[in-house]
């Protein structure tokens, strides 16, 4: 059971609570990404797993054992640091095998692990270089190699790719996947970059303000955000969150109303609430020069070129709505008609920001099972 379990874990420095009451389980062999803006407590959480930070309150279990007071070295965890933390006075090879030597592994074992990892991460031929003589990408691979050769159950990564340029990140992610496929460690990976999270994670744990916001598969985090924070944090440009009024059959945003279908009406009714926020992702907004039967009208404020598509910023009776468009022929001041895709809209409680959930009918089997199956593959 190489799982990690948090039970009411809290961490505070003096009076500042950095992590508030974490309760979740990281499953054996999964790639869990701890995602969140800086200062959200994700790194602290990772460092508590590593044993580099004391746990103020609550319990942390790894492998079924309580770990609160177990020193770092006895947790069977390897870690990759954002700055790589390579020993500047040791050569590449010494850096990689230093920890193994301490474990008193046999020479042959060390050599074979070293050869294997050098091969896998294309570091052959650089063995005797010092870190200062390596490129950024090479250093990052050395850090990976050093963590990999330990073959520990838990593989912790703290923003491991943030010092690399965009292209290197892609190849580095591939290497990470390769490593994970090979050894199936329980991987906990801290990042603030949602693309990394989306592309790499089996599950994402989104944190904000020391609290866990949502823990689910990337697809669910994207399509079924549990709260306003998640909806806004994931995706770029972020989800539009709009003030709305709920009427019997429709909702209105600004002066204009929008009729909901039966499925949603029923769902909202069941929730027995009318104090709601309306959410829709830019990519789920249809734009048109002609009016829709059930849609809105607004004025274009400006457009942004994202390369693959355009973001169109629209003024909707005083609120701003962003929509994605394949075309660039939206100019400032144009009147634009648009309509949210009915099965891609979100509703949140105005007070708590939590999602009111989704009608059963919209939850197709695909969403539920696809990610799970990837974990098992």
């Amino acid at each position, binding site marked *: 059971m190489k799982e990690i379990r948090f039970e009411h874990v809290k961490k505070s420095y003096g009076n500042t609570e950095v992590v508030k009451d974490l309760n979740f389980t990281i499953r054996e062999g999964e790639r869990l990404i701890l995602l969140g803006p800086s200062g959200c407590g994700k790194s602290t959480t990772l460092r508590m797993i*590593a*044993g*580099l930070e004391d746990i103020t309150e609550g319990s942390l279990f790894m492998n079924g054992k309580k770990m609160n007071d177990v*020193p*770092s*070295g*006895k*947790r069977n*965890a*390897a*870690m990759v*640091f*954002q*700055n790589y*933390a390579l*020993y*500047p*006075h040791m050569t590449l090879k010494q850096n990689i095998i*230093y*920890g193994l030597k*301490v*474990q008193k592994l046999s020479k042959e074992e060390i050599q074979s692990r070293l050869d294997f990892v050098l091969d896998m991460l294309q570091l052959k031929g650089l063995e005797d270089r010092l870190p200062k003589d390596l490129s950024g990408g090479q250093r990052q691979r050395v850090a990976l190699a*050093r963590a990999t050769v*330990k073959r520990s159950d838990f593989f912790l990564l703290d923003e491991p790719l943030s010092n690399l340029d965009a292209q290197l990140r892609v190849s580095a992610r591939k290497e990470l996947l390769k490593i994970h496929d090979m050894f199936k460690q329980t991987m906990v990976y801290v990042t603030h970059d949602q693309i990394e999270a989306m592309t790499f994670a089996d599950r994402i744990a989104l944190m904000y303000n020391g609290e866990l916001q949502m823990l689910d598969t990337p697809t669910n985090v994207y399509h079924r955000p549990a709260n306003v924070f998640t909806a806004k944090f994931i995706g770029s440009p972020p989800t539009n969150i709009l003030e709305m009024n709920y009427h019997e059959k429709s909702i209105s945003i600004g002066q204009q109303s929008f009729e909901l279908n039966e499925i949603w009406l029923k769902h909202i009714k069941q929730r027995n609430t009318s104090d709601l926020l309306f959410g829709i992702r830019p990519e789920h907004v249809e734009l048109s020069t002609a009016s829709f039967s059930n849609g809105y009208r607004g004025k274009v404020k400006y457009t942004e070129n994202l390369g693959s598509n355009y973001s169109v910023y629209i003024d909707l009776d005083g609120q701003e709505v962003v929509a994605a468009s394949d075309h660039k022929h939206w100019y400032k001041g144009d009147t634009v008609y648009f309509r949210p895709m009915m099965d891609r809209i979100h509703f949140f409680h105005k007070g708590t920001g939590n999602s009111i959930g989704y009608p059963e009918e919209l939850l197709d089997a695909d969403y539920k099972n696809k990610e799970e199956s990837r974990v098992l593959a």
Partner: protein
Amino acid sequence: MKINRTVEFTWHVIFMATVLVLVFPIIYAVGMSFKPLEDAYNNVLNIFSLHPTLENYITFFDTLPVLKVTMNTFIIASVATIFKVFTSFLAAYAFVYFQFKGKEIVYFLLISTIFIPFTVTMIPNYLIISDLGLLDSVWGVILPQLADAIGIFLITQSMRSIPLSLIEVARLDNLGHGKIMKDIVFPLVRPAVTSVGIWFFISSWNEFVWPVLILKTTENYTLPLALQMYISSEGGTNFTVAMAVSVITMIIPLILYLTFQKYIIGTFTSSGIK
């Protein structure tokens, strides 16, 4: 950097003059040590005598067991240096990597000893060394020099500049403090440790006031003490022999410095206070 030629020239003149002022006495001392005393009195301007002689050195070697005296100086300087560096390193490690109660107070107390003039400690220390029965022994000279506040300060500063993540990696590898110190921290603060060590060695090598109090027999003398035998007495200072002793006193530091000057300057340069 491109600068005005005149400005550059002026600076070169200033530096050359300063270098001359600083280095001239050393050359003068060397010259004097090969002069007969009579010559030294009467031909002050000849840096090097027309009648060079080894007489001054011979006198020195005849009157004192020079090898033994040099050895004493060396033993005192190196043992004191090794211990000072060692204790400073351990203390710095504790201050940088441990959280313990009273840490700030202890640090402050230790560092504040820099401000205690040696006159404060001289008499009581003499009494202690005497009670320990270490008068007239090199250990009596060494003992109070086994720890040093400036060493602790400088090594602590240097250690603080090591990224904490390096230590954390080591902790994840289940390394003990001994190994972390030896394999990771020490190599990384080596420039600071070396420069502090060189400085300790030189200070201890040239130390004078304290050994005068402790050492009695000529067998146990150090070189700066030997120098005292030729100066400031009713019979007049034997200046040239004093200079010969001076030259012998400086020769080891100078050889060390001139041989390793690149390394020493590099070390001092890379161990700046951060």
